[in-house]
């Protein structure tokens, strides 16, 4: 890629102002680092294979502290995973929880529902979309359907443009 850039730069098309050299250095250095990491990982994989040579390898259920028969309803879900992060970013990601409090000693049934609102979606509508729609509603009279007046608009536009262009 850098060969191509050099070739283009030689044509003198004024692309030379963009300093490619530092980027070339960065990407070369990052590639070197990544290669090192890959080499280290491969080496460790080989080491791991060596360590496991002739070792007993068992299989069993996930360790669960007596938690032996989970169902899909009991799983740790994506929203549980994100819960603490969402709590921290609550101002930016308003979380709505619908959870009626349980009543009585033997509550029959309850439900829990949570939804993270998109702050952009929420505020874009009331702050931007609604005012603009209202404004254009007010300007509806311009679009009246009279073809003669539309031609008049075009003429007016051309006359106005004559002053500026």
């Amino acid at each position, binding site marked *: 890629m850098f060969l191509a850039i050099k070739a283009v730069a030689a044509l003198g098309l004024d692309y030379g102002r963009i300093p490619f050299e*530092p980027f070339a*250095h*960065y990407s070369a*250095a*990052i590639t*070197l*680092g990544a290669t*090192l*990491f890959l080499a*280290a*990982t491969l080496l*460790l*994989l080989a080491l*791991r294979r060596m*360590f*496991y040579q002739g*070792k*007993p*390898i*068992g*299989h*069993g*259920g*996930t*360790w*669960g*502290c007596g*938690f032996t028969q*989970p169902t899909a309803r*009991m*799983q*740790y879900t994506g929203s*549980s*995973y*994100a*819960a*603490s*992060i969402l709590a*921290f970013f609550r101002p930016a990601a308003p979380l709505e929880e619908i959870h009626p409090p349980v009543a009585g000693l033997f509550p029959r049934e309850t439900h829990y529902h949570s939804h993270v609102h998109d702050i952009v979606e929420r505020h874009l509508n009331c702050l931007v979309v609604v005012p603009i729609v209202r404004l254009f509603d007010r300007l509806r009279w311009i679009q009246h359907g009279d073809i003669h007046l539309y031609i008049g608009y075009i003429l007016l536009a051309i006359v106005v443009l004559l002053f500026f262009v």
Partner: protein
Amino acid sequence: MIESVMLWVFALVSAPLFAGIIFKVKAFFGGRRGSPLLINYYTLIKLIKKGSVYSSSTTFVFKLGPVVNLGTIVTALFFLPIAGHAPVLSFNGDAIFVLYLLGLARFFTIAAAMDTASPFEGMGAAREAYFPIICEASIFMILILFYRLTGDLTLGAFLSGGQPFGLWQTAGPPLLFVVIALFIILLTENARVPVDDPATHLELTMIHEVMVLDHSGPDLAFIEMGAFLKLFFYSAWIARLILPFELAHPLLNLLLFSAGW
């Protein structure tokens, strides 16, 4: 160069010892005799000698986690100036590269934890994803400060030679806060006492330990080794800032200090 490589090897070999010193100091302040200094080496050897039990719900991601974890931190140590010597490798921007390497390690640890399908490990993974959000932001603030001071973005430029001493002279007060912040980051990243307690075995209170519950044998040894090296990485960083003098190995002093916590 040879010196730097030797120091890198020294870091790899001595990291478990420093973690052992922390144990010892903790035991001392707790009024106990504590485990022997070389306890971590014994643990590593014991773990390597063992076989493993894998959960039937895990895939190759679970096995890849420990290897990538150790691989990243070993690579990150290449860029760390140890005890004031130039690092083995250095390029402009390597500080950011190293932080992202550690981020990669975190990603794989979390992925491995999630791979077990255990809710406990999911909780640990959630915390592991949550705390570094705050830590990384503060580390990047520190990097910005260092960049403003030195005009460079390499760990070598911040920490090697007489550089930290110069930093103290030009910007002492902010550097004091940097040291405090880095120390808190060290405690968080390495799952140490006020944030996490590596000694508890109550899954609900743990962060790092709970994520490695299902690892065993050599895999666990890799994870432990990665944790020791990570501790070394952060403490070498702070040690250079606290003791910017041209001593042989200021690391020792720091680890004693950090363990008193």
